[in-house]
């Protein structure tokens, strides 16, 4: 079998395995889930899909300045989209052609978020061959921090970071083609299209693409004495970039854009002194993404794997071929991004996601290439070296699956169980509101976590907040709980379904007493599965 055919099969195999793993959160329960931003990324695509029309100005339910109170995303870009529309438009396309509302969008989230496996495959295959590439891709399917951001609902970020290896691959191929005296400009043009795609999807990933390339370019120019600049290629590349990006600058860089404020943001750091350079993550504080595991390396690599990482790094430093220096440039770039806050605009905690994208291939290089080469100093036969290479490959995969893979598999499989995600009762009520209430309806949602005497809902604000946002996203109606809305909203939704599910009829009766004053003189419009929608007398 030719190497081209093996590569194609490997790519499809990785995509198929990714599908089996990354769709775990919704294989058995297809009701929506995710942290606070998940519903936002869902609804921007869903709204376009439901209406079969693109969005420029935000619709009422998420734009909102209602009775002088800013309640939505309208402030981010003067009522216009504040993200470039490509990612969400692609969601809409998937929905429109897959003939279902929620599932195709979640399938797209899972598909796009897991692409780091094949983009890394392509890069490592070119640098070190198919076996290290396949293993790197395979273990990256279980990359914990990618999984965490995906489960939290930061889908565009995960996809944009997955493009980084491709940009590096394309530019490296362009540079190598200069070395071979056959410049292939197509790689530079592809790199520009990919950087444009990163700008459209999640611009923060651009620095992660450019910094390692900048470091490696300096090394390449000094080492190879090849100044790989061709004016014609550069001009065409810039034209491609300009044509693609210019009409979309208005979205993320509009008048009151959030991206303009990023430069003023500071990362939470315990120290800004030189001591931070002695720590791998600098002095970043574990805030923002509130999960202890996220900030620890124990879900990324086990102690058994650390020697392979060191072997890999030592091998690259000793050998110093161009591909080795490229990987080392990526490693150095990651270190600099963790330590120089001005490069990351206050968002280095997100960039930690990319650690595994560099460390996993390095670990595989350590096991599959470095160790057999180190041992061959003892003049072992080629057969033994080959057996060692494949034996270590199998051992690494087994160690990884047993120590890291299984836990991360469980994280996906057990994500958002039961009431932690939208239930059928809440979904049905949202669908009813979408089809029966006016588009500019203001709906007050009574907080179903209010009875503090019900311990399960104590300190459980994020779940309620997330659900409230999902009910808004699914109903395509403005839903809020501000005190302004409590007294002024025309409609009220009383969602007692979670309380009933946990506490039964008695809990429901207790909770209902609290709500009476809000629905006095109101007309019951919808009543199903302990969710009621009322219209107040005006």
């Amino acid at each position: 079998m030719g190497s081209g055919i093996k590569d194609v099969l490997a790519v499809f195999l990785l995509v198929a395995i990714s599908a089996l793993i990354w769709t775990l959160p919704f294989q058995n329960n297809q009701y929506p889930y995710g942290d606070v931003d998940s519903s936002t990324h869902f609804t921007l695509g869903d709204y376009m899909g439901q209406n079969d029309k693109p969005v420029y100005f935000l619709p009422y339910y998420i734009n909102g300045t209602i009775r002088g109170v800013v309640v939505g995303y309208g402030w981010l870009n003067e009522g216009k989209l504040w993200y470039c529309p490509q990612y969400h438009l692609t969601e809409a396309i998937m929905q429109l052609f897959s003939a279902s509302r929620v599932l195709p969008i979640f399938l797209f989230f899972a598909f796009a978020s897991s692409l780091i496996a094949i983009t890394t495959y392509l890069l490592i295959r070119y640098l070190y061959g198919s076996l290290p590439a396949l293993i790197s891709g395979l273990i990256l399917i279980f990359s914990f921090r990618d999984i965490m951001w995906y489960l939290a609902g930061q889908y565009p970020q995960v996809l944009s970071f997955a493009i980084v290896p491709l940009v590096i691959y394309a530019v490296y191929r362009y540079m190598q083609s200069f070395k071979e005296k056959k410049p292939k400009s197509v790689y530079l043009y592809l790199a520009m299209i990919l950087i444009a795609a990163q700008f459209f999807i999640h611009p923060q990933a651009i620095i992660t693409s450019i910094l390692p390339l900048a470091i490696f370019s300096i090394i390449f120019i000094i080492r190879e004495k090849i100044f790989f600049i061709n004016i014609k290629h550069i001009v065409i590349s810039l034209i491609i970039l300009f044509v693609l990006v210019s009409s979309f600058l208005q979205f993320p860089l509009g008048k009151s854009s959030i991206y303009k404020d990023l430069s003023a943001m500071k990362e939470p750091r315990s120290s800004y002194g030189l001591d931070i350079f002695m720590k791998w993550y600098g002095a970043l504080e574990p805030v923002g993404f509130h999960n202890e595991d996220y900030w620890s390396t124990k879900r990324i690599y086990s102690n058994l794997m650390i020697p392979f990482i060191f072997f890999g790094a030592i091998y690259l430093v000793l050998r110093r071929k161009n591909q080795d220096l490229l990987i080392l440039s990526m490693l150095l770039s990651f270190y600099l991004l963790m330590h120089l806050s001005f490069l990351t605009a206050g968002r280095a905690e997100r960039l930690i996601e990319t650690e595994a994208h560099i460390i996993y291939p390095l670990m595989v290089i350590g096991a599959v290439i470095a160790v057999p080469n180190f041992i061959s100093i003892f003049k072992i036969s080629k057969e033994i070296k080959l057996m060692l290479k494949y034996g270590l490959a199998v051992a690494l995969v087994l160690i990884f699956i047993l120590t890291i893979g299984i836990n991360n598999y469980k994280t996906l499989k057990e994500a958002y169980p039961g009431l932690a995600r939208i239930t059928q009762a809440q979904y049905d009520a949202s669908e009813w509101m979408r089809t029966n209430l006016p588009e500019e309806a203001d709906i007050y949602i009574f907080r179903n976590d209010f009875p503090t005497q019900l311990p399960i809902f104590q300190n459980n604000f994020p779940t309620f907040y997330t659900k409230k946002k999902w009910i808004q996203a699914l109903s395509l109606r403005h839903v809020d709980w501000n005190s302004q809305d409590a007294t002024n909203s025309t409609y009220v939704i009383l969602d007692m379904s979670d309380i009933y599910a946990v506490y039964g009829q008695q809990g429901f009766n207790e909770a209902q007493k609290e709500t009476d004053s809000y629905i006095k003189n109101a007309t019951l419009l919808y009543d199903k599965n302990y969710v009621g929608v009322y219209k107040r007398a005006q």
Partner: protein
Amino acid sequence: MPNSNFLKNWTIILGLIILLLVYAYLFKFTGVRFIFTIFIFALPSYLILNLFELDESEKIIFSFFVSIGIISSSVYWLAFATQSIRVAFLLVVIIVIAIASALNILKARKLFLFKEKHKPKEN
């Protein structure tokens, strides 16, 4: 012996069948339609990339990302004119596939090829 292009084409078809089976097993008809939509979404970019001297796995992997960059951008603005994302998407896909296919046919007849002519300066 079948030639390598024949084998590569069949490998792609085999890969797509594997994906279809996985998605059909997990998500029934919606899963199948989803993979079909991804295929249609990436196809125009794949055919454009086919004009260049790239290997098969490069074309497959790049095509999805190029489509996010180019196809989705084009569909977005065109959809304001057509007042339908569905129509705009189909128009863009059909036009790009038609142009790329024509160029691919010319390329196969060796009448047209994106070839690098530039010679680098000696350093």
